């Protein structure tokens, strides 16, 4: 941006109507008299409107019925019992992580691009993903729905990638 009188962050917030009244007044007055900023705001508004207008799904009454029926079939188990089950789930996940990790380390290099060995970063990524995979897929086979939900919640708590655990640190159960 050429103009130094406003920041791009201010222009974005102005375009979004998210500035407080005082700042809004200042920025709006400037934008009204500055062609460069006015153009910037216009581009931000139009590109923002395009994001807002991206395709949407509209699940209908059949979806509602399906979800309500599924919820009825799976009543919430008592929290106390869940918490007691938890150490078993963690142990199972750890064992499975090791098992599936072994398999990936054996198969991945040949299937990755040009038979190259995985970089350290790729290995970390796979290991992070495996944590999820081993939890979910294997435990699902155990037919213990409480365990699945517990471990899925744990993914959020413990995180599988640093970035995401930082982003979403809270369990939706509110701890």
């Amino acid at each position, binding site marked *: 941006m050429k103009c130094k009188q406003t920041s791009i962050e201010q222009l*974005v917030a102005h375009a979004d109507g998210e500035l407080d009244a005082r700042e809004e007044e200042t920025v709006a007055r400037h*934008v009204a008299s500055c062609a460069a900023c006015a153009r910037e705001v216009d581009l931000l508004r*139009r590109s923002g409107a395009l994001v807002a207008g991206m395709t*949407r799904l509209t699940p209908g009454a059949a979806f509602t019925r399906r979800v309500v029926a599924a919820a009825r079939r799976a009543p919430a188990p008592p929290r106390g019992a869940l918490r007691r089950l938890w150490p078993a789930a963690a142990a199972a996940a750890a064992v499975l992580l090791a098992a599936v990790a072994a398999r990936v380390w054996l198969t*991945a290099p040949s299937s990755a691009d040009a038979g190259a060995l995985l970089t350290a970063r790729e290995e970390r990524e796979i290991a992070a993903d495996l944590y999820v*995979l081993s939890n979910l897929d294997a435990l699902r086979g155990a037919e213990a729905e409480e365990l699945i939900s517990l471990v899925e919640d744990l993914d959020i708590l413990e995180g599988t990638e640093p970035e995401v655990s930082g982003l*979403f640190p*809270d369990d*939706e159960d*509110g701890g």
Partner: protein
Amino acid sequence: MTANDPDTDLMLRCARGDESAFEEIVRRYQGRIASLAFRYLGSAADAEDVAQEVFLRVHRARETYEPTAKLSTWIHRITVNASLNLLRRRRVRRHLNAEMPAGGADREADADFEDPTAKRPHEALLEAELAAVLREIIERLPERQRTAILLNKYQGLSYEDTAATLGLSLPAVKSLLTRARVNIKEALLPYLTAGRSGAGTAEDDDA
């Protein structure tokens, strides 16, 4: 923070075992939640699966629900997590099975849900191209920027609600959103400046 959350009463009724309240929550959120998941997954079927899982989690947790956060914040957060988890599991499956096409195999599903608003042919063509470009831009954004922009611009959450959903401070969210908006705007520049009539959806208000 939640005093003005119109959904609190609904969730409290749900917590007391009122199944019609749960159904109302599903009805109220199913479009938004499935759409958000769709933006991550690109497949309508996967998005509906995730949406169902989100609502089942809400249902399971209903008795322990404490209105310390808006219901919409909570539901959006679960949706983002569930979508990202599924994306990661897909990535692992691709590592395990090299024959799997590298992404976007379900893209055609998008067309089924396109708004059937009638358009003149050249407009429709331009919009289809623009939609594809935009989808790709969003997909390539760093994960945090992508999530922030989807919550704010696609889902229509305020900056404050976006911050609450992400568990970030308001300044952090402003900075994320600014970077995302600049990236998107720059990538769309050829479309935004071509002819000036290309993006008919833009509001036209003067500041």
